[in-house]
């Protein structure tokens, strides 16, 4: 067995909020290899972005990792000094954020921002780093790279800014790229260009991808593996092909049914009533149970673990037979907005 590029074991993250201590991540484990593409989906507040930030050591001041291990290329990050940890992470992993304008330095020319990593960290000469930056700008499809090298972020369009952010993420030749909703703020036409670029990088450079998004269709297009996150845990884990056809968790089923598909027009969309679990309160039982159509007494008493099913992993007591309980009139679920108190 070769060591995975990234391995996360039972990660826990807590955040201090005005409403009390919030258990944002409650035991997340994850393995990613070179060339993998993994999509993490879930609603706002489910802990998708926090997971990425915790791995990268980019948590906000009021948040901290309380337990768990993170291995990058087999090295336990906890054993490293702050400096060595940062060096290892920036060598292996690049990250692209949703909001490119906030991620870029507004008073630094974009070319210089891309050349910074090769120049500073890899110790390349100025000329060589400059040439590398131009090469990266061409790779990510920025037309007239030489001319745009000297522009500032505000002089570029949203699509170009996101490309610059991707070029920066690639500048240290990482083996893995974290994408935190990189296309959510973009138009569909530009989104298609950026997604295509990421797919090409994966094929050409065997760059691994971890893609956090709330858009299931995007995951379907570019990922092989999917993790569905709910209330700080993975509730389903499996291949995209399999999970989209045979979800083994009621939450995954509901999410898939509530997402409109451009290829089909359905009578009504499935809607999940109620609100996501409040993680400042202790979790007893399955956090999805109050919104679940298949919940039983058992579900409110014990929280299910992520266990192997026929073809995937599911954290549901009724993973094997919840489909029998899909309400025949499921389209009427929540349409009157009941349970919205």
């Amino acid at each position, binding site marked *: 067995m070769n060591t995975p590029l990234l391995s996360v074991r039972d990660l826990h993250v807590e955040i201090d909020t005005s409403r009390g201590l919030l258990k944002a991540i409650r035991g997340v484990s994850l393995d990613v290899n070179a060339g993998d593409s993994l999509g993490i989906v879930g609603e706002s507040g489910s802990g998708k972005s926090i997971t990425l930030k915790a791995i990268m050591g980019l948590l906000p001041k009021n948040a901290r990792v309380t337990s768990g291990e993170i291995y990058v290329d087999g090295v336990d990050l906890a054993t490293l000094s702050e400096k060595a940890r940062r060096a290892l992470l920036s060598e292996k992993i690049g990250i692209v954020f949703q909001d490119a304008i906030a991620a870029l330095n507004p008073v630094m020319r974009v070319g210089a921002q891309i050349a910074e990593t090769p120049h500073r960290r890899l110790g390349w000469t100025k000329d060589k780093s400059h040439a590398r930056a131009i090469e990266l700008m061409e790779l990510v499809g920025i037309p007239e790279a030489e001319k745009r090298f000297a522009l500032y972020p505000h002089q570029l369009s949203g699509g170009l800014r996101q490309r610059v952010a991707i070029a920066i993420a690639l500048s240290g030749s990482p083996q893995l790229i974290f994408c935190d909703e990189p296309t959510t703020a973009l138009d*569909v036409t530009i989104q298609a*260009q950026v997604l295509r670029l990421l797919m090409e990088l994966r094929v050409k450079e065997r760059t691994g991808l971890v893609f956090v998004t709330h858009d299931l269709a995007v995951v379907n297009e570019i990922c092989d593996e999917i993790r569905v996150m709910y209330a700080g845990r993975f509730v389903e884990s499996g291949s995209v092909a399999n999970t989209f056809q045979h979800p083994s968790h009621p939450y995954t089923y509901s999410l898939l049914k509530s997402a409109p598909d*451009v290829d089909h027009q359905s009578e009504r969309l499935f*809607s*999940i009533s109620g609100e996501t679990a409040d993680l400042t309160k202790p979790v007893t039982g399955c956090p999805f149970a109050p919104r679940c159509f298949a919940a039983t007494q058992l579900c409110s008493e014990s929280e299910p673990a992520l266990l192997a099913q026929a073809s995937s992993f599911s954290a549901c007591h009724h993973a094997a037979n919840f489909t029998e309980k899909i309400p025949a009139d499921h389209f009427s679920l*929540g349409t009157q*907005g009941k349970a919205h108190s």
Partner: protein
Amino acid sequence: MSEIVLSATNLSKHFVGKQSVIGKIRGKEPLSVPAVDGVDLSMPAGSTIGLVGESGCGKSTLGRTLVGLYPSSGGSLSLFDRQIGNDRSLEERRAVQMIFQDPYSSLNPRMKVGDMLEEILLFHKLADKESVQKRCVELMELVGLPVTALQAYPRQFSGGQRQRIGIARALALEPKILIADEAVSALDVSVQASIVNLLQDLKRDLGLTMLFISHNIAIVRQVSDRIAVMYLGRIVEEGLTSEVFNNPQHPYTKLLLGSVPKMTPGSKLGAAPQGELPTIQARYEGCRFQSRCPIATSACATTDPALIQIGSKDHQAACINL
């Protein structure tokens, strides 16, 4: 053919910049941005029209001009066969209402939901002091909120609930036409589904006509009877939803639809579309789409295409190469 409730003919909205003193002396024209530039659109009673396009194409400006939030700069608008100008009567304003994208900034944070609704109802004389409470309760029921919501401030609600309040505010005026401008774009998928379903129920039960503006093409397909595709201030294709999606004609519509990620297993994105939306110019020579168009010919540089009928179907597109 059902009755046309709202129709725009050659409607335009130009934003004109400030003119400098020197510019005035030199007789230079001030900067003018034609965000909506010659739009023809009719809304048949009881239908939902989906308006799609990239950011900056003028979708929201068109919506706001139809509601009357922006005075139009040219063309005409008619409501139930009556011409309406830029100074609308109370009754005309009531007939067309808007649901905004951001339920956080479109509600007064210092006013309880009930007080806000009461103010609207009393001002428009849709209820008197005795009946106003009853009407507020009815509105809450209509949008699926508990009656206790009337005593709460907007900040006490989640995004989906706030959007329901925004819908109740619009419905309080008993409108005939709803303009939903990215009404579900800021919401999570599951909440989005419940708001979309609510809008469809209300439209059916109250006999509303709706313009659904969104950049999310999958949602638009879900709710709309007809689709209008907008590009740089113009409508380039319009027709029945099934027609436009199954048989897109305009090269821009094809590019737009080809870029949408799909839920179908094994789907892989089509060829990457080229270029991005150029900034709006004051004037155009020929077709606006020619710079990105894969089938542009020399004639496109000189001819400004008008919307023409496609086949015998209820479907039109603005391209000279069809």
